[in-house]
């Protein structure tokens, strides 16, 4: 097991290198000359050249790459033009909010998706199954930003059941910062009214964010369950006289867990990417909104920072899932 862990962890390194190369290449895709942009419209050619030298833009590309990686590792991810803060500082501020959103949405996705998948499998080809397939395809086809707006219109504006946007009501101070996640922090601090408000603000965004993953999880659990239910050991259990519920919950579900685990990992990354849209509609102060605002203001360093951070999280997530796989299914360790 130890050797598997070491091998798997070492595999990250080339992927991380690749990630840095990709972001480096993308950051050089800009058609505009960054030196000219920095110098301003009235700069002379000399001034532009000075700035170019100052930023090291006249060095050969591989030298620039090395500087780039060195800066990344040192924590120098550039500065945001809009906020005037270092990008890493901004990211540290906003990332917990996105994580809060993603974790909440994954909880909903799994909590609703797994039972639905089991139900669909157990009632195969009868109406619950067909209905769940209709929902699955619908949820996966819904533009999340549009669905978010529709829910805002109906539930928030018209019915007034939930707040329209934001993480907290305007002019409400967040709780003392422990994790950075408002819901968790207000619980830790013991501020229950704040907890309740934060929870109300979290529901709609988390729900909208969850539907994509929910649909995929439902389908996958259904598929896996069907496969397992057709196997011999299930027949044996039934023949032994075990009730259907015991068979499904005790025997079949356990075996369906492993492939579902990868799926959950993938969905997490998926949600992380898609959070951009939900955060924009609900004005949720996460890294997605940060990236969008930066994109619209041609503020480039924050976008690159978000991309690197999200890529990094994704890589670590895949590592964790693979390691868990190795724990759960011993056969994997020998591949």
């Amino acid at each position, binding site marked *: 097991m130890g050797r598997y862990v070491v091998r798997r962890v070492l595999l990250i390194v080339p992927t991380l290198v690749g990630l840095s190369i990709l972001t480096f290449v993308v950051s050089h895709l800009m058609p505009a000359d960054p030196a000219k942009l920095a110098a301003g419209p009235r700069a002379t050619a000399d001034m532009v050249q000075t700035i170019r030298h100052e930023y090291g833009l006249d060095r050969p590309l591989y030298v620039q790459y090395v500087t780039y990686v060195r800066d990344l590792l040192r924590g120098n991810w550039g500065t945001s033009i809009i906020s005037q803060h270092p990008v890493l500082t901004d990211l540290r501020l906003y990332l917990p909010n996105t994580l809060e959103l993603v974790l909440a949405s994954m909880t909903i996705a799994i909590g609703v998706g797994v039972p639905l998948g089991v139900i669909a499998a157990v009632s195969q080809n009868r109406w619950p199954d067909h209905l769940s397939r209709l929902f699955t395809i619908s949820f996966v086809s819904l533009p999340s930003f549009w669905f978010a707006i529709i829910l805002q219109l109906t539930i928030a504006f018209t019915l007034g059941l939930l707040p329209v946007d934001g993480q907290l009501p305007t002019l409400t101070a967040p709780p003392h910062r422990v994790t950075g996640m408002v819901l968790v922090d207000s619980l830790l601090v013991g501020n229950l009214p704040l907890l309740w408000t934060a929870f109300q603000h979290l529901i709609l965004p988390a729900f909208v964010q969850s539907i994509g993953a929910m649909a995929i999880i439902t389908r996958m659990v259904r598929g896996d369950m069907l496969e397992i239910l057709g196997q011999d050991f299930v027949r044996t259990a039934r023949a032994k006289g075990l009730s259907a519920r015991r068979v499904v919950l005790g025997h079949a579900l356990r075996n369906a867990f492993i492939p579902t685990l990868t799926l959950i990992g993938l969905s997490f990354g998926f949600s992380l990417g898609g959070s*951009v849209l939900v955060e924009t509609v609900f004005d949720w102060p996460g890294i997605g909104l940060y990236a969008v605002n930066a994109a619209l203001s041609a503020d480039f360093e924050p*976008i690159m920072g978000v991309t690197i951070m999200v890529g990094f999280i994704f890589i670590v997530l895949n590592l964790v899932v693979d390691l868990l796989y190795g724990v759960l299914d011993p056969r994997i360790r020998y591949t």
Partner: protein
Amino acid sequence: MDLGIRPSVEDSGSATATGWPLERQRSHENLRRQVARFRRNRLAVVGLAIVGLLVVIAVVGPYIVPYPGDTTGAIHPEAQLQAPSTAHLFGTDDIGDDILSRVIVGSRLSLTVGVIVLVIGTGIGVPLGAVAGYFGGTTDVIIMRVTDIFLTIPALILALTIAAALGPSLRNAMLAIALVWWPGYCRLTRGQFMSLRQRTYVESARVIGARDARIIFRHILPNTLTPIMVKMSMDIGFAILTAAALGFIGVGAQPPQPEWGAMVSLGRKFLPNWWWYSTFPGLAIFVTVFAFNMLGDGLRDVFDPQGVR
């Protein structure tokens, strides 16, 4: 009218009662079975119908819209933000343009984007995957590493970054999405090639001296087309969705282009009183993507029923 086109028993050697050689008859039966299987899937048939309707609208639309001038952003201050009515079925927007007309013309944009993204994506991904799968070794490792890197970053974020770097426009958004999409096709093609290159007919071709390129194009590639096309039919919905998402964020199509995602974004300022501005373009996105997904699901069911239905 008998044109005399009939296989003669002498030249095929395995003619059946209908006169056609066995292989041709089998493929006829195959096709009929597949069509029957597709037709049994009611959702898929509905999907096909809607997609067909959408294609017709995209092609014919600009000529039949009720307010052709509005599709390019003509300003009508007197008709601003009117609620849906018989004159304007989807209402009007903040500069008085008829939303229905803009949505209809927007269908052309969305469908074109979906197709182009897939064409570029497969254009890059399939050849790379073929080379990786066929030659194996170092080429394979390099190509797979590159693919893995692209796959580590969630699609929307990468597309957002690339589109932001290149500058906001529909063309750059398409390029960005295609760059995010090609790894999937590369992987798929590579997998196909790796399993198919072991087959006997490939070995035979090599033995009689066929060059690698010929083997790839003439022998293996035709057999990989089906899974690739199934994937394309399933992907086109998501390509359109991603393009709309980029348009919503603002790095895709720019006003006054009637792109659905951009329209939803513009309409946000006018919630909740003038709700129709965001609602109808978004509904168009949903219906389109839904139809393509149903169609793709049905096609996958017919050609590639690996998972349990």
